[in-house]
Every structure is written in C-alpha cells, then in structure tokens.
C-alpha cells in the first residue's frame, strides 16, 4: 500500500519509533504502575512489594535492551534519538544500577521514614531519562533526557523527610544542578547559533568544513556544554556538590547517583565529543593543545589528584566513597581522550564500576545503624561481628583500588593500555600513581574492620536483610567474574562503541 499523505507516512513510522525507545517506555510505564499501585495499597502497609514491582520492570528493561543487541543503528523520531548497541549497553548498566539500588532500598528504607512508593517511581523515571540521554543524537533530546534524569534525582536526594542533611543534599543538588543546566542550555543555544541545527552530525559537519579556531560562538558553546556535562560527572573543579550530596542522601539513592547518573553523563560526553566535536579534539598547527584533548587532560589530572588527596583524610566511609567516585570519574576522563579503544575501555570500566560502587554503598547501608552512623569508628571490629559482609566489603574495596583478580584491575588495565597506545605517557603515570594513593584509603577501611581493637562496648549485630544480601552477592559475583574472565564483557564494549565512530 502506498501512503498518500505525509501524515500517513509519519503515522506508519510511529510503531518503529516507539520500538527504538522501548527501554525508556518500559521504565516510565514501570514508574506509572508503581504510583498507581501505591495509591491502591493501605497507607500504613509496607512498600516492599512496590520495590519488587519496580525490580520486575527493570528486569524487563534489561531484556528490552538485550533483545536487539547486534542490530544496526536505527534512527527514530526524526533523527532525535538512535537505538544502537552503545545505548543498549548503557541501558543495561542503568537498569542494573537502578535494580541494585532498589534492592538496597527494599532492605534499608523501611526503617528510615523515607518517602516510600515514590522512591521507586522516581528511580524508574530517572532510569528512563538516563536511557533517553544515552540514545540522544540531538542536543534537544539530550537536554530533555538529562533533565528527566536529574529532576527525579534531586527529589531522591531529599527523600529522607526527617533528616535535615537529606534536605540539604537535595537542595544543594537542585540549586547547583540547575545552575549547571543553565550553562548547558546556553551552550546548546550557542551551538545552534553556530551550526544552524541542534543535530550532533550537523555540528560535526560544520567543524569539518571550516576551521573552528576562529569561530568564537562554536568554541564558547562547546565549552559551556562541556561544563554542564562535567558538572554531572563531578569532575574537578565542578565537584564541590558531590561529597555533601552523596553523604546526605539516603544510601540507596547515593548508589544510584554514583553509578547510573555518572554513566549517563559519560554517555552524553562520548556522544557530544565523538559525534559532534571530533574535529575540535586538537587545535590547528602550532596550537595542538588548544582543543578539548588538552582541556580534558588537565581536568583528568586535577580530578584524580584532588579527589584522592582529599579522600585520604576522610573519616566517614560514605564520604570517602563519594571522593572515590570523583576520583574514578577522573580515570574515566582519560578514556575520552583515547578514541575507539578508550571508549570501549570506558564502557567496560562503567560496567565494573557500577557493580563495585553499588555493592560498597549497599554494604554501607547495611552497616548503617538507625543513628545513621557511617564513620570509620563504626567499622572497627566488623570483621568479627559480620564476617561474611566484611569479606564482601573487602573484595569490593580491593576492586575499587584496582587489585587483581577483580574487575577493578582489568577496567584500569584496559583504560591505561588505551592511554599508553595513544601516547599519553605522563597522564598514565599520574593515573597509576593516583591509584596507588587510593589503595591507602581503601585499605584503611579494611584495617579498621580487621586489625583495630574494639574500644567501645560491644554492639549488637545488625539484622541481616535478604534484599541487601542479594544485591551485595550479585555485585561481588560480577566483580569476581569480570576480574577472572573479562574478555566477553570487553568484546561487548568494543562492539558497542562502533556506532560512535
């Protein structure tokens, strides 16, 4: 049948378009179902069932991503989004991060007086936004995806209603996040002014056809977009919000911020840098350092060094993990400089990092007493009181430090190998030195758990929660699996980044 009007053509394309954003649709549908079921439940009833319901939708989302793996990239919604292996790989990371955070919330939130059903609904909306962000090939859909991720995140940060620190975290995240969004939107406006289009490929075409060094509008626009996205990954000098927000937020939400939000912002950075601004990587002859490669080199060194040095003196495990997550963003920025191999290393790193970080935060949530104690002194003697959980925390911390045979070792190895192959010797040396420094503060937690004497009175053991135990178990399993046999995951990451280049 031949469609005889434009309206009919676009109408017949809609089902295909909707299939392209299926992971997003599943997440949003899950959020809506959670809200409605929440209304039908008795007000005083436990909301753990809603957590399980949201897990169901997140598993569906993983399936929706996996079922299309290997299909060629498919543009949808008049080229605003693309469904490719890159977005599917990241979609799985987002869904896994959200599912593990939800598991932690099921075990942790009932005794914290948090907003309950809403927590899972907002988690699902944010996950959907992250998926859309990873699929965006246009600055407008990128912006709306980022906001769809950020606004639920601000609310999640403030969702411990009786805790002033949570309110402070939400407020700080919101104000500074809105400020960063302002930079991003202004940058988008300038890029549109320079290129006459918000399509990433049109901006790349402009950069390819004329020298960018004289085009001030393009340069300022690109810089502002970079600032907006670097804020989201908490790169130095845009990291000030992260420790306070990560410490004040409910721990399951912190786990989500440190993994899914960061991974989504890296997805956007990869798309913008490789699809829109590949020609701005280096300057013209004589000014080779003028492009974003030089800029990001400086930011990577600053982010790694500042975060690791401040983390050395932290006495609160949750805050320590916040600084550790800033430092990991620094390592990941190195990957942005290393083209295809670097992008693949970033995806592998993000997958490994998701398991180790969510696992560590889940254990923080597990050890957290009703007083909200996360300081290092609370961890003294845990090796005797909670032997299994302490071993799990040790494995996750070793992985964060990059000690073999864990996933953390191989993610750093692939990243640094890509950097050496691209000739970033100094940067690699700085990164390796930094990971040596970081081993000190990760090991401090271990030392506190096993080797320090208990001075305080004996504390009662925390009641084990099946949901948190399951989350930690999955994390430890994958951290070891990706450490012992990393090849299939690296191959998946390698084939996923092909569509970026």
């Amino acid at each position, binding site marked *: 049948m031949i469609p005889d009007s434009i309206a009919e053509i676009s109408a017949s394309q809609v089902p295909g378009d909707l299939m392209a954003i299926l992971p997003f649709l599943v997440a949003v549908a899950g959020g809506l179902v959670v809200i409605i079921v929440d209304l039908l439940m008795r*007000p005083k009833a436990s909301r753990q069932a809603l957590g399980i319901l949201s897990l169901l939708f997140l598993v569906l989302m993983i399936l929706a991503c996996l079922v299309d793996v290997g299909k060629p990239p498919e543009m949808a919604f008049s080229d605003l989004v693309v469904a490719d292996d890159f977005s599917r790989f990241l979609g799985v990371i987002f869904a896994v991060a959200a599912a593990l955070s939800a598991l932690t919330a099921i075990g942790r939130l009932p005794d914290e007086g948090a907003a309950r059903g809403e927590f899972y609904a907002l988690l699902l909306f944010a996950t959907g936004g992250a998926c859309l962000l990873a699929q965006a090939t246009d600055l407008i859909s990128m912006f709306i995806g980022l906001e*769809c991720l950020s606004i639920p995140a601000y609310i999640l940060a*403030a969702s411990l209603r009786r805790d002033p620190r949570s309110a402070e975290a939400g407020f700080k995240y919101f104000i500074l996040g809105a400020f960063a969004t302002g930079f991003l939107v202004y940058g988008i406006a300038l890029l549109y002014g320079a290129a*006459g289009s918000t399509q990433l490929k049109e901006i790349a075409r402009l950069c390819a056809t004329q020298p960018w060094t004289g085009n001030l509008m393009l340069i300022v626009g690109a810089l502002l977009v970079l600032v907006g996205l670097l804020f989201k990954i908490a790169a130095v000098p845009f990291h000030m919000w992260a420790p306070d927000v990560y410490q004040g937020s409910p721990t399951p939400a912190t786990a989500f911020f440190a993994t899914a939000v960061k991974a989504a912002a890296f997805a956007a950075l990869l798309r913008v840098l490789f699809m829109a601004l590949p020609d701005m990587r280096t300057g013209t002859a004589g000014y080779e350092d003028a492009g974003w490669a030089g800029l990001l080199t400086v930011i990577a060194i600053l982010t790694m060094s500042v975060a690791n040095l401040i983390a050395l003196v932290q006495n609160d495990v949750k805050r320590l993990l916040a600084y550790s997550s800033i430092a990991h963003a620094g390592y990941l920025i190195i990957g942005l400089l290393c083209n295809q191999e670097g992008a693949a290393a970033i995806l592998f790193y993000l997958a490994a990092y998701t398991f180790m970080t969510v696992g560590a935060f889940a254990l923080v949530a597990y050890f957290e007493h009703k007083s909200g104690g996360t300081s290092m002194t609370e961890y003294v003697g845990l090796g005797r009181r909670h032997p299994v959980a302490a071993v799990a925390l040790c494995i996750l911390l070793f992985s964060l430090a990059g000690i073999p045979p864990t996933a953390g070792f191989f993610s750093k190895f692939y990243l640094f190998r890509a950097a050496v192959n691209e000739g970033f010797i100094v940067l690699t040396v700085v990164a390796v030195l930094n990971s040596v420094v970081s081993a000190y503060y990760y090991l401090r937690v271990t030392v506190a758990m096993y080797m320090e004497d208990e001075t305080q009175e004996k504390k009662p053991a925390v009641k084990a929660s099946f949901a948190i135990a399951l989350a930690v178990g999955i994390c430890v399993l994958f951290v070891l699996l990706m450490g012992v046999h990393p090849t299939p995951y690296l191959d998946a990451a390698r084939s996923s980044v092909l569509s970026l280049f």
Partner: protein
Amino acid sequence: MWEAIFFWGFGGLAAALAVLVIAMKNPIHSAVALIGNMFCLAALFALLDAHFLAAIQVLVYAGAIMVLFMFVIMLLNLKAEELGRSRRTLAKGLGLVLLAWVAVRFLAEFKGEALALPAVTEDYGTIESIGRLIFGPQILPFEVASVLLLAAILGAVTIAKKRLW
C-alpha cells in the same frame, strides 16, 4: 535599522535588569526586575517574528509564574536584618574583572558572520506552525516533558506534604 535599535535597546535593558535581579538586596525588588527582564525577552521574541512565543512569555512567565514568586516572597516576609549584609567584595571584584575580560575578548573577536539559516516562512511563529513542529518532528521532547513534570509534581508532594501516611 529599526530592528537593530530595538534589539540593542531591549537586549541591553534585559541584561541590565538581569544584573539587578541578583544585585538587589530586597527580594521584591529582584522579582520586579525579573518581571521587567521577561517583558524584554518577550520583545526580543517578537523581533524574531516569534509572536506566539512572545505572547506566551508574557502570559506564563511575566504573568503566572512571577505572580507566584511574589506571593511566596510576600508570605515569607523577610525582614531587613534577616537579609544579611553583602559580603565577599573580593569575589565580586574578581568576577567583574573576569566578566570585563570575557566581554572585551568576545567583542574583539566575534565576527558576526551571517549564518545560512532557512528564510522565515509566511506562517513562521504562528500557533499552527508551532503546533505542527511540536506534534510532528519534536513530538518526543514534548511528550518526555510530561514525564518530567510528573516527576516534579511527585517531588513537590513528597517533599512538602506534612503527612504522607
């Protein structure tokens, strides 16, 4: 000629009012400056032939949203001593110097080359053409914005409601 005069007039006024929004000590004064700023932006939209956007800018932003702002500020009823003294003169001075430097560089280097944007069509900026855009090529951002608003409503209830259960 006239367009340039109006552009620089309204643009300059908008920038000056935006500075006043953050420079004024009394929040009411800031809010009034913000209303003025939004009217100037509406005028700039009108200069760009985006008449519908100009009208919406006045109705929604200068009208509805700013009225809510005013209500909130008046309900909070801040006293002069609660507003605090202005501080951080060093930071302000440094900021001004940097701003001046950026402005000078921008004015010196900006070539202002005309872009090859498509010509303005007959129905540009009308409700119909905006509707066709929103419900046609830009349907995805438009629909996702509703998810965004739903999340924001959920957040307002979650954070502000006295008793959740």
